[in-house]
């Protein structure tokens, strides 16, 4: 399986990553998580994310290796630092033979990300 993980301050592209789809990849699933204009009920203009970077990359790798066994390629790009409303905080791209395993993995991955991966969303500084 191909696994690629990037955490950086660079904006995330809408295609997450260029992929070379294999001829058995029937499913190509892309999830983009964007910063919403409301956080905890209050209007915001941006969020600030921080990461314990080497561990966050390790954990994401581990989750993929454990849970994406039926997928052929998984790319995860998480932006950190200041992210304006509407821009992409996380991008996930999954290639797999069929759609069901890609969708199932996306759900598992996002749940695990939000419990186990050392990345923090902080409100904008006042």
């Amino acid at each position, binding site marked *: 399986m191909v696994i690629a993980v990037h955490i950086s301050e660079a904006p995330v592209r809408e295609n997450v990553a260029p992929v070379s789809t294999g001829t058995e990849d029937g499913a190509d699933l892309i999830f983009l*998580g964007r910063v919403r204009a409301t956080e905890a009920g209050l209007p915001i203009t941006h969020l600030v994310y921080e990461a314990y970077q080497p*561990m966050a990359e390790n954990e994401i790798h581990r989750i993929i290796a454990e849970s994406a066994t039926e997928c052929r390629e998984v790319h995860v790009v*998480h932006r950190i630092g200041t992210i304006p409303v509407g821009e992409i905080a996380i991008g996930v791209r999954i290639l797999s033979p069929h759609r069901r395993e890609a969708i199932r993995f996306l759900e598992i991955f996002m749940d695990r990300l*939000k419990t186990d991966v*050392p990345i923090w969303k902080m409100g904008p500084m006042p």
Partner: protein
Amino acid sequence: MSDPLTLRVLFFSSARDIAGTSEISMPCSASITQPELRKKLSDQFFGLAPVLATARFARNHCYATPDECFVPGDEIALIPPVSGG
């Protein structure tokens, strides 16, 4: 480049805000249990106790199992509840 007689302890998010620093180097000549380290950090940093109650420890970039001890040279991180994505 880890110092063989210290534990490096990293703070993130709310833990860093309360500790007022992102990293300390703690003298440590032998292995130390997690309850012992929690006690030392709570004594050293006023207000950190509530964060310590909900945070997990990571050792060398992996979550520590509950009984795992830390030894000189380790990179320990205090991980408050995460909120990525």
